[in-house]
């Protein structure tokens, strides 16, 4: 059994951006996908823990948070794409190449907003139209919808959805949304596709947006524009964002708080300022020192030796001990606990345990940025 995510705890507060950083294969994406149960089970197993989600509706109605891992499947379907939305890494692969942009985004409205759409069309709607608004029409029903008694209604429904799609596209600063709606994903540039994905994700005004490396496939100039856009929309719509990235410099620019992940565990959390000005965990320090900057001399870039370990039934230990320059005996035999250091910073490293027992603790050097 591979322990891809192993005892991860963190919280995302209302309206904040939390950055989840770490190397490839350390479980960032699996963590995020677990939020909305996108990890296929089997082979995957949710072996324990809770994902507590307190939606804005629940708060308004005075209900408590719900555990996303235990709710029934159809409730999850209602939340996924509506209250919690996700932007995927590769916009080229995340869009269906056989659907026009209109149909791509319209699906979100048909799935989550069919009642509102029907309501805006009039007080009463026949079953046929109701089914059409939920995208449940059979082939024969679709044929019926082209016949006179239903045609005008079906057209109205379509117009209403088009209007919503157009609005969603103009939200992400796509000029002339009518033209884009007719096109197919292959006709759009990478930046444009990512905008469409963001429009799709934000269509229902979600409480939480999960952005899984949304800009890695894009050029820097386009990346900057997409990030500006996400930040602006987030501020206006008051959405919380979980931003997953392996790019530390990017996370520093856009996140309020950071969680550093290594081999299925969170090794350090804190506000962006705290973590970047004074990283505590040797892994965080190693990652930060490895980013090339003007201060580095050629050939003297600090690197972390070795690779992320395989997570096949791991023994209790600090997962970083195989690559850590400071590792001592205790790091190889005991799981570290999370220790608060500083105002909101916490770290899972024995070096910050109190020194009053006779166990030898690792000693880190002071951090010089």
């Amino acid at each position, binding site marked *: 059994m591979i322990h891809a995510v192993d005892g991860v705890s963190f919280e995302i507060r209302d309206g904040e951006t939390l950055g989840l950083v770490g190397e490839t294969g350390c479980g960032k994406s699996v963590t995020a996908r677990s939020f909305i149960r996108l990890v296929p089970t089997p082979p995957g197993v949710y072996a324990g823990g809770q994902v507590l989600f307190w939606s804005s509706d629940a708060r308004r109605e005075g209900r408590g948070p719900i555990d996303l891992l235990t709710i029934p499947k159809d409730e999850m379907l209602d939340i996924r794409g509506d209250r919690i939305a996700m932007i995927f890494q590769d916009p080229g692969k995340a869009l269906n190449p056989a659907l026009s942009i209109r149909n791509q985004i319209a699906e979100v409205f048909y799935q989550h907003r069919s009642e509102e759409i029907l309501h805006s069309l009039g007080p009463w709607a026949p079953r046929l139209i109701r089914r059409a608004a939920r995208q449940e029409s059979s082939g024969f029903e679709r044929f019926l919808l082209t016949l006179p008694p239903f045609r005008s209604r079906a057209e109205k429904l379509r117009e209403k959805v088009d209007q919503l799609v157009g609005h969603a596209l103009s939200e992400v600063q796509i*000029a002339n949304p009518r033209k884009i709606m007719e096109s197919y994903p292959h006709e759009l540039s990478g930046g444009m596709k990512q905008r469409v994905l963001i429009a799709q994700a934000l269509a229902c005004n979600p409480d939480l947006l999960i952005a899984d490396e949304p800009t890695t496939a894009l050029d820097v100039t386009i990346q900057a524009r997409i990030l500006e856009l996400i930040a602006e929309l987030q501020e206006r719509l008051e959405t919380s964002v979980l931003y997953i990235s392996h790019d530390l410099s990017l996370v520093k620019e856009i996140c309020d708080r950071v969680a550093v992940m290594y081999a299925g565990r969170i090794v350090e959390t804190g506000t962006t300022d705290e973590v970047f000005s004074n990283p505590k965990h040797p892994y965080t320090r190693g990652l930060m020192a490895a980013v090339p*900057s003007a201060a580095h001399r050629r050939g003297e870039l600090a*690197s972390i030796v070795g690779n992320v370990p395989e997570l096949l039934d791991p023994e209790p230990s600090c997962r970083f001990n195989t690559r850590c320059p400071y590792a001592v005996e205790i790091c190889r035999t005991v799981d570290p606990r999370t220790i608060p250091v500083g105002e909101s910073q916490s770290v899972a490293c024995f070096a910050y345990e109190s020194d009053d027992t006779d166990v030898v603790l690792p000693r880190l050097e002071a951090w010089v940025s």
Partner: protein
Amino acid sequence: MTSLRAANKEREPLTAARSVISLRGVEKYFPVKEGTLQRVVGHVRAVDGVSFDVRPGETVGLVGESGCGKTTLGRCISGLTQVTGGRIYFRLSDADAARLDVIEAIAASERTRDQVRELKRIEENHRIDQLEGKAWKTYRRNCQVVFQDSFSSLNPRQLVKDIVGRPLRVWNEASGEELTERVVSLLESVGLRRQHMYRYPHQFSGGQRQRVSIARALALDPEFIVLDEPTSALDVSVQAQILNLLYDLQRERGLTYLFISHDLGVVRLMSDRIAVMYLGKVAEQGTATELFEDPRHPYTEALLAANPDIKAKESGMKGLHGHVPDPASPPEGCRFHTRCPVVTPVCGWEVDDAVAWLQDHEALAEGLAAVERRTNFDATLVFHTEEAAASAVEAFHKGDVPPVMRSALEEMSTDGRKVSIKFSPVPPVELEDIGGGRLTACILHTSRGLRI
């Protein structure tokens, strides 16, 4: 290591006053085909007139966004693809380079017989698409490539020993026991060990696979290596290992690199000199420090502004607005003018810019029926109705048209449903020397700009 060095007898001393690779107006066009008959309807100018020299022992960085032609240029230089136009020279001495410039300046019909003979001699010995026999072989073994994706550039059915040993076998450099030992020493020089020799590529992590690629490139002890985004698929910590390795190898073996990357931080660290490419052309060229500390082209500035910096005290990344142009019909004048934040009226405004602006506005775009183009600067826009034409004209005069475009517009006349627009023609902006070994293709920094 010394045995390797001795084995490569073609090697010249590094001190000779020459360049390893010289590019002179290199062009590479790809045809765009359409219809059932696959008729050629145009060309994508992936590389469009690039010239620079790579000196022995230095690293030249090539940066730019995806689709700017940097990889294609790397492929042209390494002989993996034929150039459409221009010339690439290998090991051109400074004296020959000077002679070439003199002869090239004379029209072909007016060259003396001696000059023609001399040109032929230089081209046969140095121009890579005319090399033959021994000279061609020397070039091939001295110019190696490390590709971006180490997964698709290593044969999944071969053992590492076969992959790294293949060049040695092809060149009959070694066989049997000696081959094995050579492969081991190559693997050791890139930080792998003997036990890695009998494994397949899929058994390695990304960083290790990239090490295998590097070992293969080093097998024939080349002089020059094209590094095509060698670290873009790797994590930062592993990237740091590979970059350190590349630098150590360069120092030990006196290698010359062409370092292609879109990551500005990496290019800055690795390169002595940098060329910034935009849409097939070099926008700016200079030493790494100068280019980063005092950029002389708005595109370089934009790249720097958009690049997140972990050490920066202040935050803030700025992206580029405007239309990303189609490389099949690159913009007139300065190719960057459609996205340039400091664009002037003389940067090459053209009909496409006006049409693109119209298409951004739903109401106006619907009214537009056709564009009758006389030149790229002069066209008639045909609208469906007279009202649509009138509202478009009004929008041009009063709407949110970029003020620079409005002042670049020379003429605008309405005739019923037709609106003629005319911009003044602007020649392409070429790379110009602005002193101190720096070149830029921005009129704000070159002599053409001073005349305005």
